[in-house]
């Protein structure tokens, strides 16, 4: 896979299909993969990677990149293509400047998951089918891929690649996974338990804004939290209230637009399961207003911009389900 991704990228540049390639390259450690723009085939062959750690969703970068001159090729995993479509739906990407290459994805791994398995001194890693061959300072170890998967990939919703000009690997299908299991577990708790859970989790927030900055839905020209006129502007939190305000407002702002790509939780340095807030909203919208997947198509009206005369009243939540 790695080779065909790199060769595709190189040939797209060589044949002049695009002038730039948006892909991934490694940082300080091999598992520390970051998005990068390449402008020549040499650069691509030298630095570009496609490893089990290419979790980063590149679609958001297209907002800026697709407005520059010349065509840019981008490599998108199935879940990234949802964001790609959603951003187009919101008129944020100039599609004609983008050559989208869909890359089928076996699920991305999480270095922390490997460390949690007791592996130390990681030096390299290759995925072979269902197994991850990990090189460590203490020799090679084989790990079942399922055990190394990052949290969001364990609840992968779809292997379908949307709106791609070319596909590497095979086109996939939507999957039935129990991605709402953790939301349901929380719902089953008492209000006190839920409150304790979130107080513990949100107390870890350091307001680094990583979740916001990585989120493809959080791509506003100016974020409300940076806008002095919004009434909720703040940089560092002035009061304890503001972090949870931040997360509630953020979750609400992306409601109906969040594709559940899980980037927020992936990048959170404090490991707050932020995606649960989004998933809760997705689950509610699916239950109350019909199943909707942001970015699955170009036409369907998002549930927050639509209504039916028969929608349930707000009290359905406050009276209907009782966690106590």
């Amino acid at each position, binding site marked *: 896979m790695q080779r065909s991704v790199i060769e595709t990228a190189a040939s797209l540049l060589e044949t002049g299909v695009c002038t730039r390639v948006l892909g991934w390259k490694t940082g300080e450690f091999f598992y520390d993969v970051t998005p990068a723009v390449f402008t020549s085939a040499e650069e691509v062959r030298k630095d570009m990677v496609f490893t089990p750690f290419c979790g980063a969703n590149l679609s958001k970068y297209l907002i800026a990149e697709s407005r520059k001159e010349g065509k840019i090729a981008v490599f998108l995993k199935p879940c990234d293509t949802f964001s790609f479509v959603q951003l187009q739906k*919101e008129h944020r990407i100039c599609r004609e400047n983008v050559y989208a290459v869909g890359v089928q994805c076996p699920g991305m791994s999480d270095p922390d998951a490997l460390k949690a398995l007791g592996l130390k001194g990681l030096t390299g890693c290759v995925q072979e089918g269902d197994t991850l061959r990990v090189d460590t300072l203490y020799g090679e170890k084989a790990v079942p891929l399922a055990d190394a998967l990052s949290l969001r990939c364990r609840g992968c919703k779809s292997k379908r690649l949307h709106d791609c000009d070319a596909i590497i690997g095979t086109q996939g299908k939507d999957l039935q996974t129990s991605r709402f299991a953790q939301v349901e577990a929380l719902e089953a708790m008492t209000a006190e338990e839920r409150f304790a859970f979130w107080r513990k989790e949100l107390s870890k927030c350091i307001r680094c804004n990583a979740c916001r900055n990585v989120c493809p839905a959080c791509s*506003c*020209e100016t974020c409300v939290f940076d*806008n002095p006129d919004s009434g909720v502007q703040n940089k560092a939190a002035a009061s304890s209230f503001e972090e949870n305000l931040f997360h509630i407002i953020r979750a609400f702002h992306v409601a109906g637009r969040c594709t559940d790509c899980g980037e927020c939780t992936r990048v959170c340095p404090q490991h707050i399961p932020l995606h649960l807030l989004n998933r809760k909203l997705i689950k509610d919208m699916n239950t109350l207003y019909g199943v909707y997947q942001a970015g699955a198509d170009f036409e369907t009206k998002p549930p927050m911009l639509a209504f039916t*005369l028969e929608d349930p009243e707000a009290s359905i939540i406050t009276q209907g389900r009782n966690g106590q």
Partner: protein
Amino acid sequence: MQRIGVFVCWCGSNIAATVDVEKVARVLSQEPGVVYSTDYQYMCSQAGQEMIQEAIREHRLTGVVICSCSPRMHEATFRKTVEKAGLNPYLLEIANIREHCSWIHKDKLTATEKAVILGRAAIAKVQLNAPLTAGKSPVTKRALVIGGGIAGIQTALDIAEAGFPVDIVEKKPTIGGKMTQIDKTFPTLDCAACILTPKMVDAAQNENIDILSYAQVEKIQGFVGNFTVTIRKKARYVDENKCTGCGLCTEKCPQKKIPNEFNLGLDNRRAIYIPFAQAVPKVATIDPNHCAMLQKGKCGVCAKVCTAGAIDYKQQDQLITREYGAIVAATGFEPISMDKFDEFAYSQSPDVVTSLEFERLMNAAGPTGGTLLRPSDGTHPHTLVFVQCVGSRCDGGEKGKSYCSKICCMYTAKHAMLTREKYPDTEVYVFYIDVRTPGKSFDEFYRRAVEEYGVHYIKGMVGKVTPQDGKLKVQASDLLGGRQLHIDADMVILAAAIEPDKSARPLATMLTASMDTNDFFTEAHPKLRPVESPTAGVFLSGACQGPKDIPETVAQASAAAAKVIGLLVKDSLTCNPCTAQPDELMCNGCSSCEKVCPYGAITYADKPFRGPNRTTRIRRVAQVNPAVCQGCGACTVACPSGAMDLLGFSNKQIMAEVDAICR
């Protein structure tokens, strides 16, 4: 620096009895920005208003807070007051300390405390008020009526009578609509054609009315006072100006076997036809699907016989674009299809007819020349069964409509009565769920059918109609008698539910006018603004808004005309200045706001913006048309970036109120 004046009204004892007004004025005078604070017995009185105006001048006030009755009561009054003193009328806020305070609290301490907080909230808000100017937009003094039935004709006539030009767009070759097909009208039994055709002629002869028949609205742009409409005038292959309506071509055309729409397919017409004798405009139309010349290039009989030389086989559709100040939807109704009601054997026997078909069978200009004959064998029917509520008042909605079609009870009584009058040898049964006769002389009419004409009214529904041996076996239940009935009928007449015309839905989309779940147009207010659509400048006439009989339709048509005239007499419109306003620098161009706007007030434009390093970026940004925006604020919350704000109720203003109250 803000210079706020606070004026606390006693409202006689209405406020002063439970609120310590002097204390409120005193406490509020300490609020930041307040430079003047006073109380007075009646702020809305002449003396009170002068006091406010004097204070504005003397203290050079930049904002005014009046603690008084509800803004719904006197906001407009006080806006005028401050405007006369040179202050922008929107630099005024009212703290409602009467309805929301003094009248609902008994304890003076509590009420005074609350009045202070309400005053503070108003002060906090007024500090952020911006001077707003109501914009003006010009009015094109021409109206468009879509639909040329009795509703459209009446609306157009009334508008034209007031001196304004008006166009009627009718999709059929003639105006007149459903009423042309009706024989007699209830409860007076006068002939429909006799009262309708003079109106059709009036419309045709009125200098202010332009009838665009055989035409359809293709595109609508613009907003109240300034609509631009594109109309497709379909090719009728006959020059309207040359055709004299002599009808010779319609007699000579060799294509004879085409179902005649006007008689609902009960007889045939030619490929070139005039729908009926009194058609307006009385010109022939070629049906391109059946004309041999247009289909195969062979024939040309009509062109040969036409002495006026009006036939033009090369005619093309014509697109006409015109400007209008107001648009009236008068698209009317259709009886629903009987396909789903197989139990009544409509598709199995020609002797099962709908009520509208029955109208044609009774009509002197109809296929039988007004003699009631069974369509199957042309014999005289002796037993007739009328079934009411076919598709009306259906639960579940799958098969029929949930609503009452309103007109069926009365026209069925009319049919039953006319049948018995003309043919005393017939037995007439009417099966009903309820007989609904609210209307002037309606119940009397129905009782005459029962008492004088001996029509058998039976409460109950017909379960099944089976054609057998030239008869229609009708199985029905008599709910009051508690028995099953079997009637051998010669004819069964179905009172089909009515539904909005199919063209209404795409029209509503073009108009951005809202519809209910049944595709009837929604009125701006169900009780107080029944002939206006919530979209400004769009009005509703006739059955497109809901089932109606003829007098109701005409009444609504004239009401809609009055509203249109009220709009067209104005040279310009004053817009509500409290409209949505996007901050273009923050707008993502994501179209969220556009999707929730009920008025279609939001469009998008690609605009250049200065980027870093002297670069220019083209960005898609929302544009609000203040003449169309009504200021609901739906877009402000839909906007993910908070770029959309509402003037007069901005985010900052509302939050300032929240802060003042929660402080």
